Each structure stands twice: as structure tokens, then as C-alpha cells.
């Protein structure tokens, strides 16, 4: 299969670290406007899959096609420019900048050296920053130094920074880690809103949260897919219960 209708088509993807296959001949397809959740025990290779997609780790073999464009050979910034955004497992924001600046710096104009020197804060930029800030519930914190945000708010800010770039594929690594129950609900609503016009790939351990958002779930174990399908089906799968949900 070379040309597909999928937003993301991963085929035979393998990466080996000194002989240890963290991801092993993985096949995965993600549809337009789909919200997919990847679950699995610690060390299953979930983060590594995201690393491979966004170019942080180079694959040993296999292919990753985003809108039929091969990503495995592209440098990181070009993968982002193609429309793939990625949130890291630990919130990765610019602590010394304000929330406003964090969002503005992520605006996808002025990405070259010259462009950034001549970048102008146009009304569109300001409007976009305010729109996204409202989306991620940070309107009141706009002028606050990002270091002062709560852990949950930092997670939202990073999601907001990605939304500034309006990616077609948004990948979130454990977005509700460290959040209160209320914040989890708000995040679930947020994800359900933002997957309306893009595909979202979420890694998560919190099953309650997964139930609220997942269209489809992929269970990863030792770099391989153990099960895939709707939440109810996966939850009933004996292999999944044994290696993951059981404990």
C-alpha cells in the first residue's frame, strides 16, 4: 500500500536501540478527524512512537506517511511545518516568558531568521492568541509568567502553543498527568472540541479519561500492537486485561 486516504499511515515501523526493539514492525492508521488513544504499560514504546513520527528519533526501518508524505527522512522543523504538532510528556513551555509570549512565539509566521526579525504583532496575531488562550482556559493568565502556572495549566498552555500552529495532526503525550479531576474533565471537553477539524493522537494511562475521548484505542505492548478497536472491545480483550488493565 503506498497511497492512502489516511492522515497518518505507519507501516512496518521498527526502531532498535542497540538491538532492543522499542517499536517492532508497527502498523497503525489514523483517519481524518479521528481521536485515537494509545495505551499500554510503562515502557511499551508509546512515547517512542511519537518520537519517531515527529522526527526526534530516527527509525531503523519502515515508513511513516502523513497525508502521503514520507516523514522518516525529514528534519524535525519540516515535519512540524507539514502539519504535525507534538506535546511532550513533561510540560515543555518557556517558563521565563509570559503566557501571551509563549503563545505568540508559537505563531507560525516569522519562522525564519529574517522573518522573526521583521515579524510584526498584527491584529490577527493578537486575535489568534486571545482565541487560543480562551480555548485553553488561560485568558486571565495571559500576562502571567508561565513558570507561575499550575501543573495542569502548563499542560494546557503547551496544548495552546500547538493549537497556535493549527496542526492537522496533534499528538499529546499524557496530557492529563498531574491534573485534578475537574481539570481532567475540562481537558476531555477541550480535546473533544479540538478534534472537530483535525486528527488527534493521545497517549494516556487514565482509563476514565480515555473513555471520555477515544474514538478508537490502540494497545501497545513491547513495541507491538496487542489490540485495537473501540474502547469496549479493547477492555474486554483477555490479552489486554492480562498485560495492562489487570493490575
Amino acid at each position, binding site marked *: 500500500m503506498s497511497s492512502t486516504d489516511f492522515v497518518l499511515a505507519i507501516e512496518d515501523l521498527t526502531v532498535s536501540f542497540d538491538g532492543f526493539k522499542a517499536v517492532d514492525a508497527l502498523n497503525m492508521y489514523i483517519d481524518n478527524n479521528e481521536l485515537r488513544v494509545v495505551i499500554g504499560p510503562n515502557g511499551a514504546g508509546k512515547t517512542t512512537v511519537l518520537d519517531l513520527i515527529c522526527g526526534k528519533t530516527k527509525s531503523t526501518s519502515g515508513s511513516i506517511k502523513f497525508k502521503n508524505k514520507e516523514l522518516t527522512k525529514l528534519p524535525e*522543523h519540516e515535519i512540524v511545518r507539514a502539519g504535525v504538532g507534538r506535546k511532550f510528556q513533561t510540560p515543555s513551555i518557556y517558563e521565563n516568558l509570559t503566557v501571551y509570549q509563549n503563545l*505568540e512565539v508559537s505563531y507560525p509566521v516569522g519562522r525564519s531568521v529574517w522573518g522573526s526579525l521583521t515579524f510584526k504583532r498584527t491584529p490577527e496575531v493578537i486575535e489568534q492568541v486571545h482565541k487560543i488562550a480562551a480555548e485553553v482556559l488561560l485568558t486571565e493568565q495571559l500576562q502571567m509568567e508561565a513558570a507561575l502556572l499550575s501543573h495542569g495549566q502548563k499542560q494546557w498552555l503547551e496544548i495552546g502553543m500547538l493549537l497556535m500552529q493549527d496542526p492537522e495532526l496533534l499528538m499529546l503525550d499524557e496530557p492529563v498527568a498531574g491534573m485534578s479531576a475537574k481539570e481532567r474533565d475540562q481537558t476531555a471537553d477541550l480535546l473533544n472540541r479540538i478534534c472537530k477539524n483535525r486528527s488527534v493522537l493521545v497517549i494516556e494511562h487514565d482509563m476514565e479519561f480515555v473513555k471520555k475521548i477515544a474514538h478508537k484505542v490502540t494497545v501497545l505492548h513491547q513495541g507491538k500492537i496487542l489490540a485495537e478497536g473501540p474502547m469496549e472491545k479493547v477492555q474486554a480483550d483477555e490479552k489486554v486485561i492480562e498485560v495492562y488493565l489487570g493490575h
Partner: protein
Amino acid sequence: MKVLSEKLFGGKQGAIGLAILSLLLFVVFPLWLDLFRLGLIGKYVTYAFVAISLVLLWGNGGILSLGQGMFFGLGGYCMAMFLKLEASDPISTKIQTTPGIPDFMDWNQLTALPWFWEPFKSLTLTILLVLIVPTLLAFIIGFAMFKRRVGGVYFAIITQAIALILSILIVGQQGYTGGVNGITDLKTMLGWDIRTDSAKYILYFANAGLLIACMLLARYILTSKFGMLLLAMRDKEERVRFSGYDVSNFKIFIFCIAAMISAIGGAMFTLQIGFMSPSFVGIVPSIEMVIFAAVGGRMSLIGAVYGTLLVNFGKTMFSETYPELWLFLMGGLFIAVVMFFPDGLAGVYEKYATKFNLTGKLSKLMIKFNKSASVTDELVGEKP
């Protein structure tokens, strides 16, 4: 226009800071100090170019270069080569075996001018080369390092090694470079004697003017999106990269700008002091420059200038009386600053300025000054 002035001066606060510094450099020092002491200030100001380059590179970009001396030195050498050629006309050098070439070449049995000295017969080319040669070197180093994602301590050590190699090279190639003595006995620039009192005054003011110009350029860079990206890169480089920026290009660019600013300082040093030697290229001066910036405040352009001036006052005073003690004192100063005042003088000032509302008082003072001193008027660009 409003936006541009905002970007150049960094708002009212920044404009006041610049105006006070300009007042000191252009009015207070020249009126108050004799020519000898003013010359010392002029020399310190040339180091301040390097200090502000480090504010861009290290303070804001998080890229510590321990080799800025090589760019200062290269700028200085380019200028010195031009002046030396002018001082070595066939008539003044007629007692040499080969008249018309610099004296040290003659002593080293060279019989013709080396090819790479040829461009320095022209002042225009020399000025271009002062700007281009160090920037090109920075580009090559930056490209080789940053594209390979070499950073942090490794980058610092490599720049230091390159500075060392360059200084050894200059010392070793005596016939081509003047060796350990450097390039000395510089006299005129296009026939204009740079050793006279009037020339010294003119060069002092040109130097101070260039420093302010470089600070405005740096200010512009820091207040643009580029400046914000520098801070972002210092904090979370990966996040910047995965937001669609080619981080290496930004680092290469700021390293090149820092090299160019340092080189201007070096060229002005040569013009004012009348010589250039390898002792400004190697490790020691490079580290000293970092200390100047750290003491003044590595995040503050203005702070770095004051830091340079103060540390050098101290050096001049102490090393006259206790030369051996100075190095220890400077080392101690650096450790103390890093441990207790990570933002240097600028950080201390900011802390107390907000406490006692110093800026409010200062701006009132400035407005009074504005009535008498039209200089500040021009610099701030607006009437009180």
C-alpha cells in the same frame, strides 16, 4: 515610528538608561577627565562591545562563547594591517632590505608582501574585512557546531580551543603577523595622524557612538520575535525545534552578529591604542570579557557596559599597586557574582530601583537635564 522607537530603545525605561549612559560617555567623561584617563575609558569601551555581544549570545541565547577574544582580535588585526601598511611606505622604510613592507616582515627575511595583506592597502576593503572576516569565521564555527547540535559546555570549550589555536598561530607566524609583539608603530589613517590629541578625541567619540549604535542594533534584535525565540531556545530548545523552527540557523545568526559587534570593538581598539597583539586573541581576554558581562549583568546591555567600565577601573587601580592580587580578585569577583548576583549589577539595580522607585526619581532628574542638555533630547528622540 512609535513601534520602531520602542524596539530600538526598549521603551521609556530603556531610553532613559541609554540616555544616561550617553550623557556619561559623551559629556561627563570628556569634560571631567584628562585626555590620558579619557583614553583609558575609550579602551574600556572597546571591550564593552564584546560584553554586549555576550549579552546577546550568552545572556539571552544561552550560548556561552569563551572565544569572543578571537573576533575582537581579528577585527583589531584587520585594522592594524591597514594602518601598518600605511606606516610602511617605501620612504619611511628605506633602510630595510625590502623597503615598502612592514618592518617585522623584513626582519623575518620576507621579500614581498604576502597575498593576504594586499586587500589591506584599501581603507574601504579594510572596513569591509573588519566586518566580514570575523563574521565568516563565526559562521563556519557556528555552522559546524550548531548543525551538529553541539552546545553548552562543549561549545564553550571548542570556542576556547579555537581562540587558543588562533593566538598560537599568530604568535608562530611572526613574519606574517608580527608574532608575539603584534602589529605596532601605527601612525596614520589616510594621512591623518591618529596619535594627536585632536585625533584621540575624535576617535573616542566615534568609538562611543559606535557602541551606542551597536546597542541599538542589539536592542532591536532582542525586542523582536527573534529575541523572544532566543529566550525560548535558552529555556527549552526542543520545544522551539518542535514548533517548526530550525534552531541551528538562529544560533548561527546570533553568533555571527556577536562576532561582528566584537570585531568593531577590536578595530576601534587598534585605532585608539595604536597597536594590536595576540594577547587580545587568546583564552585570558576571552574569559575576562565574560566576567565583564557577568558582573554588569548578562541579561542587560546597559549593565554589561557599566560592568566592563567598573571592572576595568578596578583592574587599572589595583594592578598598578598589587599586580599579583588582581587575578585572584577578579576570579573571586566572578565567583561571587555568579553565586550571589546571577543578574549582576543590573539585577541589583533593578531590585533596588523598584524598591525605592529610583527610576521615577531618575526620570524626573532626566527631564531637568533635558532642559539644559540638548544631547539627551536627540537621543531620547522626544521632548519632555
